[in-house]
C-alpha cells in the first residue's frame, strides 16, 4: 500500500475526528475555556512582581519620646513612609497604641503587620547612634510577611540614605548633592534585559502553557480517543477496512494535533490580547516548535493507547503521567526552584525542553541556533519513542 493511500486514509480519519469535535458544542466551549482558566488563574495567583500585592493593612505605633522637644527623626520617617506608600498603594496605614495592640490585631486577622518606632528613636539618631525600628510580622502568612519586610527594608534603606547624605553634607558643606550619594552608596546596580521591556509572569507561563496544552493534547487525547472508539465498537469499523493500521494512528494523531494547535492559538491570542504578552521571536518558529513537541509526545501517547484496555484506564494512566509532568517541566515554576532530584527528573521530560525552547523564542526572541540543544533532544526523544511505540501498537491491534 502506497504512502499516498496511507496519507489519504489518515486525512479521512482526522477529518472525521474534527467533524465530531466541531459538532460537539460543549466540547468546543471547553476547548476555549480550559486555556483561559489556566492562564487567568495561574497568572493572577502568582504575582508577576511585588506590585501586585497592595492594600495590606499595617499599623504604626509611634512611641518616640523625642530629644529635647524634637521628634524630627520619627517625623521624617513617617513622612517618608507615607510618601512612598502613596506612590505604591502597598499599605493601608493605621495607628495603633502599642506593640501588644498590634500583636492582638494581627492574631485577630485585622492586620498583616505593624511598625513600632521605639521611644529612644530620635534621641539615638540625634546623639549619633543608630536608630532602630521594629517590624511586627504575621508568621502564619510567610509570603506576605516577606513582602512587608522587603518593602519596609526598602523604605528604611531609602530614608537611611537620605539621612546619611544630610549628615555628610553637614560635616563637609563642600560636598555637593550627587557626590554625597556617591560617598554614602558607592555602588549602584542597573538591570539590562536581553530584550527591551519588563516581562511579567504571563510572559513566563504563556509559552509553557502553550507547549503543555498542545503536547498533552496528543499524549492524552490519543489514548482517550482510541480507547473510546474501541469501547463503542467503531474502531472495528476501521479495522475491518483494508487500510494500513498506521493510517489509524496517524489520522488520530493529526486530528488531535489540530485540536491542540487550535488551543495553542487560543492561548496565544489570550496571552497577547488579554495579558499583554509580547512575542519577540518568529511566530512561525513558535508553531514549528509546537509541532516538534507534538512529535516528541506521539510515541508516549501510542504506548499508553496500547496498554489501556478501556477509556477509564486510559484516563487514569494519562492523569498519573500528566500531573508530575505539568509541575516538573518548569511550566508554572522555574526548574531552578526545585530540589536537585526533581531537577534531574525534569531533565528527562520532553515538555521541559519544549517549554524552555518556546520561552526562549517568545520572550527572548531566540533564533534556531540558540535552541539547537532543545531541538536535538526533542527530535531524538520523538524518534526513540516512536520506534518503541509502533511495534507495541501493532501488537495491540492484532491481539
Amino acid at each position: 500500500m502506497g504512502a499516498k493511500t496511507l496519507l489519504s486514509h489518515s486525512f479521512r480519519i482526522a477529518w472525521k475526528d474534527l467533524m465530531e469535535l466541531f459538532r460537539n458544542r460543549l466540547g468546543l466551549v471547553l476547548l476555549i475555556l480550559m486555556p483561559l482558566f489556566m492562564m487567568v488563574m495561574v497568572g493572577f495567583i502568582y504575582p508577576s512582581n511585588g506590585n501586585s500585592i497592595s492594600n495590606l493593612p499595617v499599623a504604626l505605633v509611634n512611641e518616640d519620646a523625642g530629644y529635647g522637644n524634637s521628634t524630627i527623626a520619627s517625623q521624617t520617617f513617617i513622612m517618608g513612609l507615607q510618601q512612598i506608600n502613596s506612590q505604591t498603594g502597598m499599605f493601608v496605614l493605621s495607628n495603633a497604641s502599642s506593640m501588644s495592640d498590634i500583636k492582638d490585631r494581627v492574631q485577630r486577622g485585622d492586620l498583616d503587620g505593624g511598625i513600632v518606632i521605639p521611644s529612644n528613636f530620635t534621641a539615638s539618631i540625634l546623639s549619633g547612634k543608630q536608630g532602630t525600628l521594629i517590624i511586627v510580622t504575621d508568621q502564619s502568612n510567610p509570603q506576605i510577611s516577606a513582602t512587608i519586610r522587603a518593602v519596609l527594608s526598602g523604605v528604611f534603606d531609602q530614608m537611611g540614605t537620605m539621612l546619611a547624605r544630610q549628615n555628610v553634607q553637614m560635616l563637609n558643606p563642600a560636598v555637593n548633592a550627587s557626590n554625597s550619594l556617591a560617598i554614602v552608596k558607592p555602588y549602584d546596580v542597573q538591570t539590562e534585559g536581553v530584550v527591551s521591556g519588563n516581562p511579567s509572569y504571563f510572559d513566563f507561563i504563556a509559552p509553557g502553557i502553550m507547549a503543555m496544552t498542545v503536547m498533552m493534547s496528543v499524549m492524552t487525547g490519543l489514548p482517550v480517543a482510541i480507547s473510546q472508539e474501541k469501547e463503542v465498537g467503531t474502531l472495528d469499523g476501521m479495522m475491518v477496512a483494508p487500510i494500513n493500521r498506521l493510517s489509524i494512528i496517524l489520522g488520530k494523531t493529526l486530528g488531535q494535533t489540530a485540536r491542540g494547535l487550535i488551543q495553542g492559538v487560543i492561548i496565544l491570542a489570550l496571552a497577547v490580547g488579554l495579558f499583554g504578552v509580547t512575542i519577540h521571536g518568529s511566530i512561525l518558529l513558535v508553531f514549528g516548535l509546537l509541532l516538534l513537541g507534538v512529535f516528541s509526545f506521539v510515541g508516549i501517547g501510542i504506548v499508553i493507547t496500547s496498554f489501556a484496555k478501556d477509556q477509564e484506564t486510559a484516563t487514569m494512566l494519562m492523569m498519573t503521567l500528566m500531573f508530575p509532568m505539568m509541575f516538573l517541566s518548569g511550566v508554572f515554576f522555574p526548574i531552578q526552584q526545585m530540589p536537585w532530584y526533581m531537577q534531574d527528573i525534569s531533565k528527562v521530560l520532553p515538555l521541559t525542553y519544549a517549554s524552555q525552547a518556546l520561552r526562549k523564542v517568545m520572550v527572548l526572541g531566540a533564533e534556531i541556533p540558540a535552541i539547537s540543544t532543545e531541538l536535538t533532544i526533542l527530535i531524538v526523544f520523538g524518534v526513540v519513542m516512536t520506534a518503541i511505540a509502533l511495534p507495541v501498537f501493532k501488537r495491540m491491534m492484532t491481539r
Partner: protein
Amino acid sequence: MNEGDSQLETESTIAVKNLTKTFDDFVAVDSISFDVKKGEIFGLLGPNGAGKSTTLRMLSTLTRPTKGTATIGGHDIVKNDTEVRKLIGIVSEKMIMYNRLTARENLWFFGSLFNIPKAVLTKRIDELLELVQLTKWKNAQVGTFSTGMRQRMNVIRALLNMPQVLFLDEPTLGLDPQSSVEIRDFVKKLNRENKITIIITTHMMVEADLLCDRIGIMDHAKIVALDTSTNLKKLISGKDTTILSLEIANLTSELIETVRALECADSVTQENSAHLKVIVHGDEAFDTVIDAIRKKNGKINSMENLQPTLEDVFLHITGHQVRDSADQKIPIERHGPFAQQRRIR
C-alpha cells in the same frame, strides 16, 4: 462433519480448520472446523460465552487465532488479511457509526476507507439508504435515530464494499420484535438477490431456525453439532423419540421427579405451573409416563405430541438449556420457547 471435504472444497467460500483462540488460560474457541458454502446462510448458535463472537472476530480478521487457520475466498485470514478485508462486511451488536455525523457522512467515511471511486461511492450510498428507507434522514445526525434505524444503518454500512461474505454478530440483539423481523427479512433478501454468503451468530433458536441453511451449534468453545435445521431435529425425532407436552392440573415437584426418574425419560422440563415437557424414547414410553403420573394421583388435563425445536436439540446434545447461560435481560429470548411452540403447531 468434514467428510466429503474434497467435494466441498471447490464451492466453499469459507474453510475453517482447527481454529483456536485462547486468552491466557481461558479457551474461548477450541479447535473448531467447518466449511461454509458459497451463497449459504450459516448460523452459529449457542449461549453467550460459547465462543461464537470470538470465532466471528477471528474470521473477520479483528482478532488473530492462537492456532489453526481459516480461508475466505481462498485467502488466509492471517497471512492475507488485507485481501480478506476487501471481501467481507461485518455487522456487530455494537453500532459501528459516529453519533455526531450524519447518515451520509458516516457511510461516506467508512466507504472512503475502501478506495471506492467517488462517483461510485456516492451512488452506492444513495442506493443503500434507499434500500433501507433512510433517504429521508440522510442529513440527520445518527445520534438522533431510533435503535431500529441505527441497526439498519449498521447493516448497510457493512455493505458499502459490496462484500461477498457478510458477518452478522447477534444482529437483532436488543431490538424490538418488529425491527428484528425487518433485519431478518433484509438479510434473507441480501442472500437471495445479491448472492452474499452470510455467517450469523445468535443465541436465539427461532432466529437460527428462520434464517439459516445450516446451523453449527456451539457450546463451551466447541461446535457440538452441525447440519441443517431439519436434520438436527431428526437427531431427536427419530422413530424412537417422542416429545410430549402435558398439562397437569396439580403439578408438583414430586411429580416431576417421578417422571424424571423413569428409565424412558431423556429430559423433563417444567414450562410453567401446569405444563411439563418430556422427551421420551421407546415404544411403551407414552404409556409408562401416563401410568407413572396417574399412580401419583396426577390429573392430566391435556396431552400433545410436539415437533422438536432447536431448543430441544440443544438440550438433547448439551444436556442443558440455552437459557441457563444466556443473557436473561433480553425479553424476546425469554419468550422464545412459547413463540416457537405456537409457530410449530
